[in-house]
Structure formats: structure tokens, C-alpha cells
């Protein structure tokens, strides 16, 4: 925390504490809606509010029933979540793999000074981040519809994976490009002068050093795909559900607190991923001999 210098005047002191208060309020505004979800997901009643029992911390008012319902495998009851979860994981995994490979290659190319039209290409690649998602989604939908006579892309696994790859690639391009700025290109030359082929130099020298950037880009791509609903609404189908789409349907049609359990799990997964990014960042700085700040 910023400490006050000893020569601070009364106005500076007042501003210092007001500033701290503003910071706390901003954090609260950002985090409170997430934190509220956590206890609510253990509600014993099918409500989205805190019951009196919960407020008086009565153990009877809490239960794991929504988590049980989420993972209910009884074939007599329909549980769309059980389809949605593996769907979402598969889509996220595949689109992450594609986005990471393509984004890393693009960043490597764009970091070379002899590459023509660098800024233009960079702008095009990261445009899915900037263009409103609904426009990208609609564009993808009409594009797929045109292609449908050759390949059934709408409502299919591959269709969603490809669309999510487009959305995830900008994150990889940006993080890898940022990592490459600090990359000493003479290491590539040194590798070549050791007699290694360019491919070997890439895998043995370049990739290990930019790996933290690649992985954090991949994590962002994964989260992007995992959270994504707009494209899935356009391109997906009733038979092909993902977690966000199931949540959307859950809120509109059945209003079941299962989605609170899902939301809690998603928050946990996202938090773990972000911690992973931070750990990687520190590891990377240590490897380069920079002391972590």
C-alpha cells in the first residue's frame, strides 16, 4: 500500500484516505456480485435469494442439492448439463489448441522487422477483440450458412471450434508478441551458428523462452471459448449445447439454482487459471534474470 510521506499536508492526508476508500469501493463493486453467488449456490431452497435460515447461519438452510442435480446421472431424468459440460470443455480445448498454434506463428512472423504490412495484419488479427461480438457472430453465421452446401458448419462442433479460434487468436497474438519484444534475436543466430536447423532452434531455444507468453495466451483463449455465448447462440443448435448456452436457457426457461452451482464452479476454474498465469509470469521473469516486482 502507498504510505504517506512525512511531509504530507492535511489536504494530502484527506485525499490519501479518500483515495483508499475509492479503491475499496471499486474492488467491492467488481467482486461483490461474484462473492454473493458462492453462498447462494448452497441454498437448500429453490430461490435466488438468501433465506432467513441462511442469514441466521442455520446448517439446515444449506445443502449441496444443486451440485447433485448438476451431476445427476439418472437416465430417467433429463440433465442437459451433463452434455453441456463435456461439449464446452472439448470446444475450448480444441479452439485453444488451434488459436495457440496459429497465434504463436502469427506473432513470430509479425515480430520480424522485414515483414511487410505488419500493422495492417496485426490490426486484422486482433479485430475480433474490437468488433462487437454480435457483429462477428452474425457474420460467422451468414458465412457458415453460405458454406453449408459444402460442409455442415452451423450447429456443428467444428463450426463452433473454428469460430472460437477466431475469437481466441488475438489473445495469443498479443501475449506472444509482448513476450517476443524482450526476446534477444541474437539467440536465434547463436543457435544457427551452433549448427542447429531453424526448426530445431525454434523448439530448443525460442519456444522454451516464449513458453510463458504462449501458455498465458492459451489460457485466455481457453477462457474466451469457455465463457462464450453469443457465437454459440448463432452457430450452435438445440442439440448442441454448451455451458453458457445452457445457463442462458436455464435462466430464461426454468430458473433453477443449478446455474448458481455452475457459476460457482466457473468462478473457481477462472480463478485457478488466473493464478496459473501469474505464476507463469513470475517464473518467466526469474528465468530471464529479472527480479519479480
Amino acid at each position: 500500500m502507498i504510505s504517506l510521506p512525512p511531509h504530507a499536508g492535511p489536504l494530502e492526508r484527506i485525499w490519501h484516505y479518500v483515495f483508499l476508500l475509492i479503491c475499496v469501493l471499486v474492488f467491492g463493486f467488481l467482486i461483490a456480485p461474484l462473492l454473493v453467488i458462492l453462498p447462494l449456490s448452497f441454498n437448500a431452497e429453490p430461490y435466488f435469494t438468501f433465506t432467513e435460515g441462511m442469514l441466521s447461519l442455520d446448517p439446515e438452510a444449506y445443502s449441496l442439492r444443486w451440485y447433485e442435480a448438476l451431476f445427476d446421472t439418472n437416465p430417467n431424468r433429463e440433465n442437459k448439463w451433463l452434455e453441456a459440460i463435456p461439449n464446452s470443455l472439448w470446444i475450448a480445448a480444441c479452439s485453444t489448441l488451434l488459436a495457440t498454434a496459429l497465434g504463436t506463428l502469427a506473432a513470430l512472423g509479425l515480430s520480424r522487422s522485414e515483414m511487410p504490412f505488419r500493422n495492417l495484419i496485426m490490426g486484422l488479427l486482433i479485430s475480433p477483440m474490437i468488433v462487437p461480438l454480435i457483429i462477428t457472430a452474425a457474420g460467422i453465421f451468414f458465412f457458415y450458412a453460405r458454406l453449408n452446401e459444402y460442409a455442415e458448419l452451423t450447429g456443428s462442433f467444428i463450426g463452433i471450434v473454428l469460430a472460437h479460434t477466431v475469437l481466441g487468436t488475438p489473445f495469443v497474438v498479443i501475449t506472444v508478441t509482448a513476450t517476443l519484444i524482450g526476446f534477444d534475436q541474437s539467440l536465434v543466430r547463436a543457435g544457427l551458428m551452433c549448427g542447429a536447423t531453424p526448426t530445431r532452434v525454434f523448439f530448443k531455444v525460442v519456444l522454451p523462452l516464449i513458453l510463458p507468453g504462449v501458455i498465458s495466451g492459451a489460457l485466455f483463449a481457453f477462457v474466451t471459448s469457455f465463457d462464450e455465448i453469443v457465437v454459440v447462440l448463432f452457430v450452435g443448435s438445440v442439440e448442441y449445447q454448451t455451458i453458457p448456452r445452457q445457463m442462458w436457457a436455464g435462466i430464461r426457461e426454468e430458473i433453477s439454482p443449478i446455474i448458481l452451482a455452475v457459476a460457482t464452479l466457473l468462478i473457481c476454474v477462472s480463478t485457478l487459471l488466473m493464478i496459473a498465469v501469474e505464476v507463469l509470469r513470475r517464473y518467466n521473469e526469474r528465468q530471464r534474470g529479472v527480479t519479480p516486482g
Partner: protein
Amino acid sequence: MGKDSTRQTGTDLDAKATSYGGDAIVRFERVQKSYDGVLLVVKDLDLEVQRGEFLTLLGPSGSGKTTVLMMLAGFETATHGGIFLKGEPINNVPPHKRGIGMVFQNYALFPHMTVFENLAFPLEVRRLAKGEIQEKVRRALEMVRLGGFENRRPGQLSGGQQQRVAVARALVFEPDLVLMDEPLGALDKNLREEMQYEIKHIHENLGVSMVYVTHDQSEALTMSNRIAVFNDGRIQQLAAPDDLYERPENAFVAQFIGENNRLSGRVSHLDGTSCAVDLDDGGGRVQALAVKVAGDRARTTLSLRPERVAINPEEGAFPNVFEARVQELIYLGDHIRTRVSLCGKDDFIIKVPNAQGHAMLREGEQVRVGWALEDCRALDA
């Protein structure tokens, strides 16, 4: 000094220089390099590197020396001309197939690998057996006096140690040719001098050919068998260090290597190897060695080393004797740097050795100074 006066032009100097060591390992034939298709960075380069030789490319920044090294390494392509390695053209051979070792300016050690892994890398690429790799790495580290540092990371080493690892990595796969691109630039003065001797000794012990790029003339003089002085994309002179210092062939080399008094004037009488030069503004007439003068009445620059000027010489010892006035004395320990005004110039430098019984001068004193004809070289204007 007697044999010096028989030397006249650059051609026989070059003939002596290129006869070093026998056959050439590298040959540049009329090589040109241009980055933009207009401006030539390297102009008509003809150069041979002899087997086992330590050749330094010396010059100011932008003189083309680094470009020559990069063309040899394969990171730049020659716009015109041929580059030959052991007689084979290598213009179209990529860097990793040239089999040349290289030490980079910033060492370029792989930061994610240990010292052992750095040195093993070129050997693993060549698919050597594990035991052989360990043996070669061990010997290479002993050669640079870093035995026991196998498991350190480059980030845990000092600049000098990193430098030694980089040298060991360039030599560990036993290449015939090693390139060094200003490898000592980042080190402090003492360490730099220590490393100069170390690299020189490694070169002498291994008999490997080295091409070394630097802009530091004392480094070049210390380490090299031959030095190619670059300026403006051309080799100005290619000679052994002592030749280069004592017998510069043009005004650029004279001024770039060591300290140098310059006097400009016009040739008044050219007589075979020697000439008389009338200094500008009636400064007097100087007897000089005609090294590179265009002919009678041509303009010329006289080059004279500050340590070759004698104070109060014996009568008749030198053909050139002038009156000078001491302007400034700077005490430098082993010698006293003396600035005098002479022949209408007031920035004429004389290095007076701080030897026992040597004359001590005072500022404002009037003295006679003299120098030999052979030490005063008439070069291009």
C-alpha cells in the same frame, strides 16, 4: 630503420602480409553489399583469411566491418561477388550448414540452459555420443578455466565468465573458423585486457582461424596476426600490427591507429623514395618518406608519431629540426604529453618519456625538436 626506406608502396607490404601461414580458409572475391540497392556498404572486397590466422577487421562504426562478418556467418547475403570457405562457394549455404563457430557481442548464451547444456547444444546437433559430449564439454570448460561451472545458469555468472562460456561454446565443436563480433565490448577495462590475452592464447594453442571484429585499435594491435582497417566500405590497409602502426599507407590509417601529428603541405621535390614537402602557410620544409604522394607539386599530409620526435637532438642527427615553443605539459606517469607550437601549428604533440635524466621542460620554454626522415610519412592529402 634502414630497411624501412626500401619499402615504398603498398603492394610489397600486401605481398608479405598475404603470404602468412600458407593456404586460405576464407576468400572474398570482389564482394559488394548494398542494403538499399543504391548505397554500397561493402565495396569490391578482396580478402583472404589464412589457415590458423587471427585476422581482425578494424574500423569505425558504419565502415562495413560487421557487414563483412555477417556475410561470412551467413546472416547477410552478398549483393555481388563470391565468398569461399575452404575453396567452396558458400553464398547459398545457410548459416547452420557452414560449420563456423561464433561469439556474439552480447554473448547470446541460452538463458534457459545450464552452462553444460549451452556447450552440449552444438554437439547434440552433431549427434555425438553422450560420453563424448561430456568429455568435450569438460575439456572446453577447462580451456576457459571454468571447470566446475557446468550446472550454473548464464544469469548466475559474471560478465567475464559468460564471455568465457560463449568462447567455449564457439570452440567446443572444433570448427576450423571462429568469428567474433566485438565480444569484449561489454566488459570493463581490466577484464577486457585479461580476456584479450586469454583469447590470444587459446588461438595460439588451438591453431584455429579467427576473424575478429572490433572498433578498439589497441585490442586489434594486441591480438591480431593481421589487421584489416576498414573505412567507407573498403579495406584501407591490410597488414601486421607493427606494420600498420609504423608504416601506415594512407592518412586514414595513420590517424585511426594510434596518435598521430598531421602536417599538410605540398610536395616540392620528389626523389625516388623520399621527398621534400613545403608546409602550408610558410611553415618550413620537411624531409619525408614518400609513401603515397600523387607526384611533384601534389598536396600531401605528413604523418608523424608523437613518440618519434626528439627534444633538443644532437647537431646533424636528423634532417628535420625545428624551433618549437612548449604550450602545455600533461603528466601521464610513464610519459609527459607535451603540446608545442611548431611550423605554425599549435597542436603538435610530443610524448616525452619519463626516463631517468631526461630533460624536464617548462611551459613557455623554447626548444629545438627533430625527427628522422623515415618517421615522417608523406601520405595522401
